[in-house]
């Protein structure tokens, strides 16, 4: 069943075509990798799908409903949540507070609570769910540390935790493995698989080919804003256009 459907998507900045006529889809419960050389348009695609940029043409639909051009907060409420290439956190808040913010969409705690019984109860529920997420991602020891003081790897993980707190149906991970050590990366692979098992569909932009080959069920390849290949990892890796794009013409024609 198709979860996210992208048809004919285009985006240009002045004379530069960042995306030209991109079409592909994400199935429910699938892990799809989006790869391509630098400047291919992968992050631009994420920005357009999540509403941070509006496209110049094409259509995006989520579970049958059209979401092209909607503002980011609406798309997030519908269930598509993204992470960012750079560490985007609320640096001055603690880890626990960062995650609690993600819950706001799904909490019963009102905005103006007067410390009533109900408010305290929903606060307790939120904290429990936050602890669950922190346990899952290994952030429990640092829950009271300020986000700005964490090492890079944990900041990256916290970014994913915040996105998870928003209860997504589709998770768009933008280069989650950058700067992670070997151990952190294999742990990340395991976590993403577990998320998929819980029913979250994942689209991941990554440069690390080993991680991509390991984790993805399907791969879409972009180059200069165009889709040049789509298929299983084995198919894509042997595709001559893909090899050309990454390594140059010399290698592509063998």
């Amino acid at each position, binding site marked *: 069943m198709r979860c996210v459907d992208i048809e004919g998507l285009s985006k240009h900045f002045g004379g530069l075509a960042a995306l030209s006529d991109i079409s592909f889809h994400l199935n429910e419960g699938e892990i799809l990798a989006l790869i391509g050389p630098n400047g291919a348009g992968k992050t631009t695609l994420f920005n357009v799908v999540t509403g941070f940029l509006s496209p110049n043409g094409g259509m995006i639909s989520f579970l049958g409903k059209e979401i092209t051009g909607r503002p*980011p907060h609406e798309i997030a409420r519908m269930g598509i949540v993204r992470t960012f290439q750079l560490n985007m956190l609320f640096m001055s808040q603690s880890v626990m507070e960062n995650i609690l913010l993600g819950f706001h969409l799904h909490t019963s705690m009102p905005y*103006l609570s007067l410390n009533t019984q109900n408010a305290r109860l929903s606060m307790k529920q939120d904290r429990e769910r936050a602890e669950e997420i922190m346990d899952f991602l290994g952030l429990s020891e640092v829950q009271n540390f300020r986000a700005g003081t964490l090492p890079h790897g944990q900041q990256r993980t916290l970014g994913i935790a915040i996105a998870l707190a928003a209860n997504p149906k589709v998770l768009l991970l933008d280069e989650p493995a950058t700067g992670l050590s070997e151990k952190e990366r294999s742990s990340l692979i395991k976590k993403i698989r577990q998320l998929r098992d819980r029913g979250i569909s994942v689209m991941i932009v990554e440069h690390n080919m080993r991680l991509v080959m390991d984790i993805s069920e399907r791969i879409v390849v972009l180059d200069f804003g165009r889709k040049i290949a789509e298929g299983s990892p084995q198919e894509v890796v042997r595709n001559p256009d893909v090899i050309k794009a990454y390594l140059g013409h010399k290698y592509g024609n063998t």
Partner: protein
Amino acid sequence: MNMIKGRYSGKIAIAIGTIFLFSLMFIVRSPYLQHVMIILLQTITLAVSYRFITLSGQWTFAHCTMMGVGAYTSAILSTKLGCPVWISWPIGIVITCFTACLLGLLIVRTRHVYFFFATWAFAYVVEITWKKLWFPFGGHDGIRNILRPGPWFNSEAHFYYLILGITLISLVVLYKLEKSRFGRTLVCINENEDLARSIGFDAFRFRMLAFIIGSAFAGLMGGFYAHYAGFIGPDDFGWMLNWFIVIYIVSGGSRTILGPIIGTLIFVPVMQILAVYRNYITIAMGLYTIFIIMVAADGIEGLIWRLRHPGEVGVSRALR
């Protein structure tokens, strides 16, 4: 309030303070000093509500202008239409909210200095409109013979109790708002707007609400001032006053709710004393502004915080 240790000692201190403030009228007898205290309390509410708006990263230059909107509305309704004060005053607040909403729809999407200047432009235009239209604003002369809220209000002391009550309630409300989920979300949206939007927060709506709520308090003070002073004019809510409020908050600090209170407590008496040297006030305020920005842009409060937490990184909102 974290300087007061212990859970109950803080509450006892506040209780004692409140009793002291209420009984102040028996100690201070001169009507002039009572007037100063009234202006002090009014300015505290203005300053704290201004700071509330800055939680969302918006520094406005039109806070006193919003006060004027509330004042003029209440004054016009009560003098020209014979409306009782207890109706015209709340309507003044409603009109102020409405004005803030309209202005906000136009400019809340802007940031930093653009926002500041846009509110300045608004303040300027409103001020020249007040000065130009004889009807209904009374032009340069303003509106006179504004009714008192009631026959009981026949002395400074009685107005003092009114403004004291209003200020205390306002401080409590603004404090609670800041600490509530709404307030905390506001601060986070200001800190990293893209992240907040990506998890479903409508930044625009939050900013609008902050701006409207803050301006509502300004309108509240405007209504009070109109019925206290008995006459208002465009210069009472002019661009210099808008500027002074900013200075009070910058000087006192905007880290916690105490900052604007400190700034006001220092400046209002100083302004009263220096009122005679009107020509020099401009230059003095200008020099002081430059001085405070160069030395401590996050105010006295920020300075104290930095002394107590050496080496810690905490970029104040004022330093963006």
